[in-house]
């Protein structure tokens, strides 16, 4: 019963996310609305962590396999991708490294700056 109840809550929130996607005019997917709802519900205590955590942790653990069908879908988009393959590959790889480095270093810089400020105060 525990898992059934948890799964029900998660599916209910996913469904509310779908409803919001239908009603609101923004290009935001149901999953992101659902994520926001889940966070607010946990934050306000409407849902307790123990109401969803076992099933939720399981779903997150198996999440990588959910991307396999989309990845294998490259087989069908290969024809459109092929003519632009070289520039697109270069841009994709370089820009991914840049984004990861910039956002990571900027975050780290501010985290450490604030940590040092705290230490100086004390």
């Amino acid at each position, binding site marked *: 019963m525990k898992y059934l109840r948890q799964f029900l809550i998660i599916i209910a929130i996913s469904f509310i996310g779908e409803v919001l996607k239908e009603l609101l005019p923004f290009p935001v997917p149901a999953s992101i609305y659902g994520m926001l709802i889940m966070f607010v519900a946990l934050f306000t205590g409407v849902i307790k962590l123990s109401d969803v955590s076992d099933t939720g942790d399981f779903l997150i653990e198996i999440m990588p396999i959910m*991307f396999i069908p989309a990845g*294998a879908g490259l087989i069908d988009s290969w024809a459109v991708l092929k003519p632009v393959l070289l520039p697109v590959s270069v841009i994709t790889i370089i820009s991914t490294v840049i*984004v990861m480095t910039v*956002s990571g*270093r900027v975050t780290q810089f501010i985290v450490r700056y604030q940590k040092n400020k705290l230490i100086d105060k004390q």
Partner: protein
Amino acid sequence: MNNFLSNSVFFGVFLSLTGYGIGLFIKKKLNLALFNPLLIAIIIVIAVLKVTGISYNNYNEGAKYISYLLTPATVCLSIPLYRQIAILKKDFKAIAVGIISGVLSSMGSVLAMSIIFGLTHEQYVTLLPKSITTAIGMGVSEELGGIVTITVAIIIITGVIGNIIASPVCKLFHITEPVAIGIGIGSSAHAVGTTKAFEIGETEGAMSSLSIAVSGLVTVIIASVFAGFY
């Protein structure tokens, strides 16, 4: 036999899980970032489909039930985030500025390289949402007049690349704070990267999850501005 496999509901799921299982096994044997279980699974699925001649649609007839779980799983990403709420509150400024810097550097680098490679405007806007989650990226690409199928392919490839390079890049550029690692991975490689962030640690995973939602939403707001630059 082939006819039967084309109609089987469980074949697609079985093939995907087996591919991932083999991927995990290879990763364990050869501990190299390049041997990424997700990448190996995708290659195995494509190879099997090519060899047997089973169409992607027939494979997806069963495999779509795995993809079906993606929305509820994404909803659940708020659970680890809530567990890390103390960090979210403490480092709020760093997290917010970090994610925004990620969005700007993503679109800025795509803009610069599109100019260098002389891409068309259509190709440029197709690439623009490459670092954000598929569902939002598709919407952005469509709205800007990009080619949605290519955008989807590039978003997936970006995620897989981010998943593979996350550890080496963080090591190379001395990104060691768990919060910073999570923001870096989530901002650059969305949900596919986030699965890697969870392998590194709970804080990393939670921060990466947060980046998926926030960078996606920020991109929706400023992508049209960037689309006007080239």
